[in-house]
Protein backbone atom coordinates (compact mmCIF):
# COMPACT_ATOMS: atom_id res chain seq x y z
CA UNK A 1 0.00 0.00 0.00
CA UNK A 2 1.17 3.48 -0.81
CA UNK A 3 1.78 5.51 2.24
CA UNK A 4 1.97 9.29 2.41
CA UNK A 5 2.84 10.66 5.81
CA UNK A 6 2.83 14.21 7.10
CA UNK A 7 4.97 15.34 9.99
CA UNK A 8 2.16 16.71 12.17
CA UNK A 9 -1.60 16.25 12.42
CA UNK A 10 -2.11 19.47 14.37
CA UNK A 11 0.13 22.51 14.59
CA UNK A 12 -0.26 25.85 16.35
CA UNK A 13 2.09 28.69 15.45
CA UNK A 14 2.40 32.40 16.08
CA UNK A 15 2.12 35.12 13.46
CA UNK A 16 5.49 35.76 11.87
CA UNK A 17 6.97 32.35 12.65
CA UNK A 18 8.61 30.26 9.96
CA UNK A 19 6.70 27.01 9.57
CA UNK A 20 7.83 23.76 7.98
CA UNK A 21 5.38 21.08 6.89
CA UNK A 22 6.98 17.82 5.87
CA UNK A 23 5.58 15.13 3.60
CA UNK A 24 7.09 11.74 2.82
CA UNK A 25 5.89 9.07 0.38
CA UNK A 26 7.23 5.55 0.20
CA UNK A 27 6.31 4.44 -3.33
CA UNK A 28 8.90 6.19 -5.46
CA UNK A 29 6.31 8.53 -6.97
CA UNK A 30 7.54 11.21 -9.34
CA UNK A 31 4.91 13.79 -8.59
CA UNK A 32 4.14 15.42 -5.27
CA UNK A 33 1.61 18.11 -4.43
CA UNK A 34 0.70 20.51 -1.65
CA UNK A 35 -2.91 21.65 -1.28
CA UNK A 36 -4.78 23.68 1.23
CA UNK A 37 -8.38 22.87 2.03
CA UNK A 38 -10.83 25.45 3.32
CA UNK A 39 -14.59 25.03 3.83
CA UNK A 40 -16.55 25.87 0.70
CA UNK A 41 -13.41 26.30 -1.38
CA UNK A 42 -12.43 22.69 -1.91
CA UNK A 43 -8.78 21.88 -2.56
CA UNK A 44 -6.51 24.57 -3.91
CA UNK A 45 -3.08 23.71 -5.24
CA UNK A 46 -0.20 25.59 -3.65
CA UNK A 47 2.81 23.94 -5.31
CA UNK A 48 3.60 20.89 -7.36
CA UNK A 49 6.85 19.01 -7.95
CA UNK A 50 7.44 16.54 -10.79
CA UNK A 51 11.01 15.63 -9.92
CA UNK A 52 13.75 16.29 -7.40
CA UNK A 53 14.58 20.00 -7.19
CA UNK A 54 11.81 20.77 -9.69
CA UNK A 55 8.74 22.74 -8.68
CA UNK A 56 5.86 24.61 -10.22
CA UNK A 57 3.54 27.16 -8.71
CA UNK A 58 -0.06 26.21 -8.28
CA UNK A 59 -3.08 28.44 -7.91
CA UNK A 60 -2.16 30.08 -4.59
CA UNK A 61 1.65 30.10 -4.09
CA UNK A 62 1.88 33.51 -2.42
CA UNK A 63 3.34 33.29 1.08
CA UNK A 64 4.62 29.74 0.53
CA UNK A 65 7.73 28.06 -0.76
CA UNK A 66 8.67 24.41 -1.22
CA UNK A 67 11.69 22.17 -1.21
CA UNK A 68 12.27 18.78 -2.78
CA UNK A 69 15.82 17.62 -2.17
CA UNK A 70 14.95 13.91 -2.24
CA UNK A 71 12.38 12.10 -4.32
CA UNK A 72 10.39 10.86 -1.36
CA UNK A 73 10.20 14.15 0.56
CA UNK A 74 8.37 17.37 -0.26
CA UNK A 75 8.39 20.22 2.22
CA UNK A 76 6.08 23.21 2.39
CA UNK A 77 7.47 26.34 4.02
CA UNK A 78 5.55 29.30 5.32
CA UNK A 79 8.22 31.99 5.46
CA UNK A 80 6.29 34.23 7.85
CA UNK A 81 3.05 32.71 9.01
CA UNK A 82 -0.07 34.84 8.95
CA UNK A 83 -3.54 34.23 10.36
CA UNK A 84 -5.01 33.81 6.88
CA UNK A 85 -2.83 30.73 6.46
CA UNK A 86 -4.81 28.91 9.11
CA UNK A 87 -6.07 25.90 7.18
CA UNK A 88 -5.89 22.18 6.56
CA UNK A 89 -2.83 21.30 4.47
CA UNK A 90 -2.84 18.14 2.40
CA UNK A 91 0.09 16.50 0.69
CA UNK A 92 -0.38 14.07 -2.19
CA UNK A 93 1.69 12.05 -4.60
CA UNK A 94 1.18 10.05 -7.78
CA UNK A 95 3.16 8.05 -10.28
CA UNK A 96 2.17 9.65 -13.55
CA UNK A 97 -0.16 12.02 -15.27
CA UNK A 98 -3.18 9.78 -15.60
CA UNK A 99 -2.94 8.16 -12.22
CA UNK A 100 -4.84 8.80 -9.06
CA UNK A 101 -3.29 10.76 -6.24
CA UNK A 102 -2.52 9.34 -2.81
CA UNK A 103 -3.09 11.75 0.05
CA UNK A 104 -1.56 12.12 3.46
CA UNK A 105 -3.76 12.52 6.56
CA UNK A 106 -3.42 16.30 6.54
CA UNK A 107 -1.98 18.89 8.91
CA UNK A 108 -4.41 21.27 10.54
CA UNK A 109 -2.42 24.47 11.05
CA UNK A 110 -3.63 27.26 13.28
CA UNK A 111 -1.79 30.58 13.20
CA UNK A 112 -2.50 32.82 16.18
Amino acid sequence: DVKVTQSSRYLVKRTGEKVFLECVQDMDHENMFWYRQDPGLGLRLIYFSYDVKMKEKGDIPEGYSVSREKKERFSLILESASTNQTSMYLCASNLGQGNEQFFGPGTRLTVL
Partner: protein
Amino acid sequence: AQSVAQPEDQVNVAEGNPLTVKCTYSVSGNPYLFWYVQYPNRGLQFLLKYITGDNLVKGSYGFEAEFNKSQTSFHLKKPSALVSDSALYFCAVRDGWGGSYIPTFGRGTSLIVHP
Protein backbone atom coordinates in the same frame (compact mmCIF):
# COMPACT_ATOMS: atom_id res chain seq x y z
CA ALA B 1 -8.91 25.18 -19.61
CA GLN B 2 -10.35 22.49 -17.41
CA SER B 3 -13.01 22.85 -14.78
CA VAL B 4 -15.30 20.72 -12.66
CA ALA B 5 -18.52 21.48 -10.85
CA GLN B 6 -20.30 19.71 -8.03
CA PRO B 7 -23.68 21.43 -8.04
CA GLU B 8 -24.81 20.21 -4.62
CA ASP B 9 -23.11 21.26 -1.40
CA GLN B 10 -24.97 18.56 0.47
CA VAL B 11 -26.89 15.39 -0.35
CA ASN B 12 -29.17 13.71 2.14
CA VAL B 13 -30.31 10.13 1.72
CA ALA B 14 -31.88 7.47 3.92
CA GLU B 15 -29.91 4.33 4.68
CA GLY B 16 -30.72 1.59 2.18
CA ASN B 17 -31.77 4.02 -0.54
CA PRO B 18 -29.73 4.62 -3.69
CA LEU B 19 -27.47 7.64 -3.70
CA THR B 20 -26.15 9.92 -6.42
CA VAL B 21 -23.51 12.62 -6.08
CA LYS B 22 -23.31 14.80 -9.17
CA CYS B 23 -20.27 16.01 -11.08
CA THR B 24 -19.99 17.85 -14.38
CA TYR B 25 -16.79 18.84 -16.13
CA SER B 26 -15.34 20.89 -18.93
CA VAL B 27 -12.15 20.04 -20.85
CA SER B 28 -10.72 20.64 -24.29
CA GLY B 29 -9.83 17.04 -25.04
CA ASN B 30 -10.66 13.72 -23.45
CA PRO B 31 -11.18 13.83 -19.70
CA TYR B 32 -9.45 11.88 -16.98
CA LEU B 33 -12.04 11.77 -14.18
CA PHE B 34 -11.63 10.82 -10.53
CA TRP B 35 -13.72 10.48 -7.39
CA TYR B 36 -12.28 10.75 -3.89
CA VAL B 37 -13.82 10.47 -0.43
CA GLN B 38 -12.76 12.28 2.71
CA TYR B 39 -13.80 11.17 6.18
CA PRO B 40 -13.64 13.72 9.03
CA ASN B 41 -10.12 14.88 9.87
CA ARG B 42 -8.58 12.59 7.28
CA GLY B 43 -6.93 12.94 3.90
CA LEU B 44 -8.68 12.07 0.66
CA GLN B 45 -9.00 8.45 -0.42
CA PHE B 46 -9.28 7.40 -4.05
CA LEU B 47 -12.57 5.73 -5.00
CA LEU B 48 -12.50 5.26 -8.77
CA LYS B 49 -11.42 6.77 -12.06
CA TYR B 50 -12.35 6.92 -15.71
CA ILE B 51 -9.64 7.21 -18.34
CA THR B 52 -11.06 5.28 -21.26
CA GLY B 53 -13.20 2.23 -22.00
CA ASP B 54 -16.46 1.24 -20.36
CA ASN B 55 -18.65 4.18 -19.38
CA LEU B 56 -19.63 2.50 -16.11
CA VAL B 57 -16.73 2.38 -13.71
CA LYS B 58 -16.77 0.34 -10.51
CA GLY B 59 -14.72 1.35 -7.52
CA SER B 60 -14.15 0.83 -3.84
CA TYR B 61 -16.83 0.29 -1.16
CA GLY B 62 -19.54 -0.54 -3.71
CA PHE B 63 -19.42 2.81 -5.47
CA GLU B 64 -19.68 3.24 -9.20
CA ALA B 65 -19.75 6.16 -11.59
CA GLU B 66 -21.11 6.65 -15.06
CA PHE B 67 -19.23 8.65 -17.65
CA ASN B 68 -21.60 10.52 -19.96
CA LYS B 69 -19.75 12.33 -22.71
CA SER B 70 -22.75 14.10 -24.21
CA GLN B 71 -23.78 15.53 -20.84
CA THR B 72 -20.16 16.00 -19.69
CA SER B 73 -21.02 14.32 -16.42
CA PHE B 74 -19.47 11.74 -14.14
CA HIS B 75 -21.99 11.10 -11.37
CA LEU B 76 -21.09 8.91 -8.42
CA LYS B 77 -23.64 6.28 -7.45
CA LYS B 78 -24.30 3.52 -4.99
CA PRO B 79 -27.35 1.21 -5.04
CA SER B 80 -27.83 1.10 -1.27
CA ALA B 81 -26.40 3.76 1.04
CA LEU B 82 -24.85 3.03 4.42
CA VAL B 83 -24.59 5.40 7.37
CA SER B 84 -20.82 4.85 7.16
CA ASP B 85 -20.85 6.39 3.65
CA SER B 86 -21.43 9.78 5.26
CA ALA B 87 -18.41 11.84 4.22
CA LEU B 88 -17.19 14.57 1.88
CA TYR B 89 -16.88 13.55 -1.77
CA PHE B 90 -14.68 15.24 -4.34
CA CYS B 91 -14.74 14.95 -8.10
CA ALA B 92 -11.58 15.82 -10.05
CA VAL B 93 -10.80 16.20 -13.75
CA ARG B 94 -7.69 16.44 -15.85
CA ASP B 95 -7.63 17.27 -19.52
CA GLY B 96 -6.08 14.36 -21.38
CA TRP B 97 -5.30 16.55 -24.36
CA GLY B 98 -2.25 18.66 -23.55
CA GLY B 99 -2.76 21.48 -21.11
CA SER B 100 -2.10 21.07 -17.44
CA TYR B 101 -1.50 17.57 -16.18
CA ILE B 102 -2.57 18.60 -12.72
CA PRO B 103 -6.15 17.72 -11.86
CA THR B 104 -8.73 20.30 -10.89
CA PHE B 105 -10.92 19.44 -7.91
CA GLY B 106 -14.53 20.32 -7.32
CA ARG B 107 -15.57 22.05 -4.11
CA GLY B 108 -16.87 18.85 -2.61
CA THR B 109 -20.30 17.45 -1.73
CA SER B 110 -21.17 16.46 1.80
CA LEU B 111 -23.12 13.20 1.82
CA ILE B 112 -25.27 12.55 4.86
CA VAL B 113 -26.89 9.15 5.19
CA HIS B 114 -29.64 9.04 7.78
CA PRO B 115 -30.36 5.82 9.74
